[in-house]
């Protein structure tokens, strides 16, 4: 009895919740695990793209997405152990944008940890971001899980240091998702060496969770749904029994299983992106396992955006998507199939028309 109660991860329905967006789901997850002391949850907010217009003006639409995610996250009960921010807090990496974003995030209750996104990085290569949020890559341990945060959006030195006459232009070139002048993301040798050393100390039975901004798998190079040295990172993670990679950048639901590694993307608070398959001129490799999110309805400003809370259940990550203006989704690790699966729509027969992208 107590086991069940302790392991519930529910929203509390409060006046505050009602004021924000109508009725929030009351029982997103009701799970009973054999050993509930091993289970905990954290919240994940990502891709806010706070965009400076001029003076004290910022793009209202993106501001609202982040403000809403922060307010809803603060309503989680039981409280998440910590909050992750998954990168792209800013649109063009300026101090004004990072400061404004940091101020909105400062309303979060509890510890917040940060991942670097390319929109935060390519103006000053993360210098100001580090002052606000700390190191660009690091690891920490929490309740028996080893967490690793990588800066996965670096690229070739030649592109970063020699190609562009100004830092502003470098930032603009990388900010355009479909810009042919941009360059593939990578973790790079410095961090790969660090990661190898960091993981050396960790028992192979310890669950490992890696946070990166870009997918540590190769989906579509044209939009940098891609990390150039993904294979090398996957090789470093291979000896571990349970590994989860959680990434932002793609502004859509994606999930996959490669060997021992579960991959899950998180939603953006700013705006949704099309699935690469809807670009008719592109070859892409969206994981077959992924049941897409609904096609966005532009008439609902926040549709196809959201945030998520993540249960670590016996070392696996279960993603609970809170989708503004849409029904929530749960992608949970299936112990028998040994892969993440949507709890409602995984079966072909149960899918709905808006999940068709073309």
């Amino acid at each position, binding site marked *: 009895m107590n086991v069940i109660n302790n392991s519930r991860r529910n929203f509390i329905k409060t006046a505050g919740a009602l004021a924000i967006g109508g009725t929030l789901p009351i029982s997103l997850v009701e799970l009973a695990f054999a050993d509930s002391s091993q289970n905990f949850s954290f919240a994940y907010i990502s891709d806010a793209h706070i965009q400076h*217009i001029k003076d004290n003006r910022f793009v*209202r639409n993106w501001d609202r997405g982040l403000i809403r995610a922060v307010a809803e996250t603060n309503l989680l009960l039981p409280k998440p152990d910590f909050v992750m921010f998954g990168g792209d807090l800013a649109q063009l990496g300026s101090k004004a944008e990072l400061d404004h974003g940091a101020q909105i995030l400062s309303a979060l209750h509890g510890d917040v940890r940060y991942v670097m996104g390319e929109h935060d990085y390519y103006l000053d290569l993360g210098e100001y971001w580090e002052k606000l949020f700390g190191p660009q890559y690091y690891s920490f341990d929490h309740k028996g899980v080893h967490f690793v945060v990588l800066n996965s959006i670096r690229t070739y030195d030649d592109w970063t240091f020699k190609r562009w006459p100004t830092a502003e232009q470098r930032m603009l070139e990388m900010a*355009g998702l479909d810009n042919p002048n941009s360059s593939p993301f990578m973790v790079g040798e410095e961090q790969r060496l660090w990661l190898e050393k960091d993981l050396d100390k960790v028992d192979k039975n310890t669950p490992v969770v890696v946070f990166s901004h870009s997918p540590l798998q190769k989906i579509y190079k044209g939009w940098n749904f891609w990390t150039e040295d993904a294979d090398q990172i996957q090789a470093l993670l291979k000896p571990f029994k349970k590994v989860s990679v959680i990434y932002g950048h793609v502004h859509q639901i994606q999930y996959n299983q490669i060997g021992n590694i579960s991959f899950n993307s998180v939603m953006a608070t700013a705006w949704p992106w099309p699935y690469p398959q809807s670009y008719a001129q592109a070859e892409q490799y969206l994981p077959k396992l992924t049941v897409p999110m609904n096609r966005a309805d532009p*008439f609902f400003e926040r549709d196809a955006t959201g945030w998520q809370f993540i249960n670590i259940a016996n070392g696996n990550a279960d993603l609970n998507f809170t989708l503004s203006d849409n029904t929530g989704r749960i992608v949970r690790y299936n112990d028998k199939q040994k892969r993440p699966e949507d709890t409602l729509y995984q079966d072909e027969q149960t899918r709905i028309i808006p999940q068709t992208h*073309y």
Partner: protein
Amino acid sequence: MSTYQKIAMTLYLAFAATSALADEFTEADVQRWQQQFMSVVSEGRELWTSPKLGTNGVACAQCHPNAANTHPETYPKFQKQLGKVVPLWQMINWCLKNPLEGQPLAADDPKMTALQAYVTYERRGVKLEPGKH
């Protein structure tokens, strides 16, 4: 022949002598027309990625990389919140007014032509399915 008939005959001969017949365009003509089209497509791409099209710095490409998820092959179609069947340019204007917080363009504004040329070009090869959702 009357004077009029003489003039008419002279004009006819003059045109027949100086201009090709309607269907006799050359490879060079085709190339020139294609260049004209592609220059409008690239103007469209410029506008699509420009922070100046609206008033808040937001560009079309921010939500629609390579103009994906615009589905020009499905227009005209019913847009439920507009409550009627609209051609693509009206939906583009909806985006200009809302996410871009800008002014709509006239249907025959060269910028609107360029935007539609770009969007359609990125969707080349996809079969027409007007009305599809």
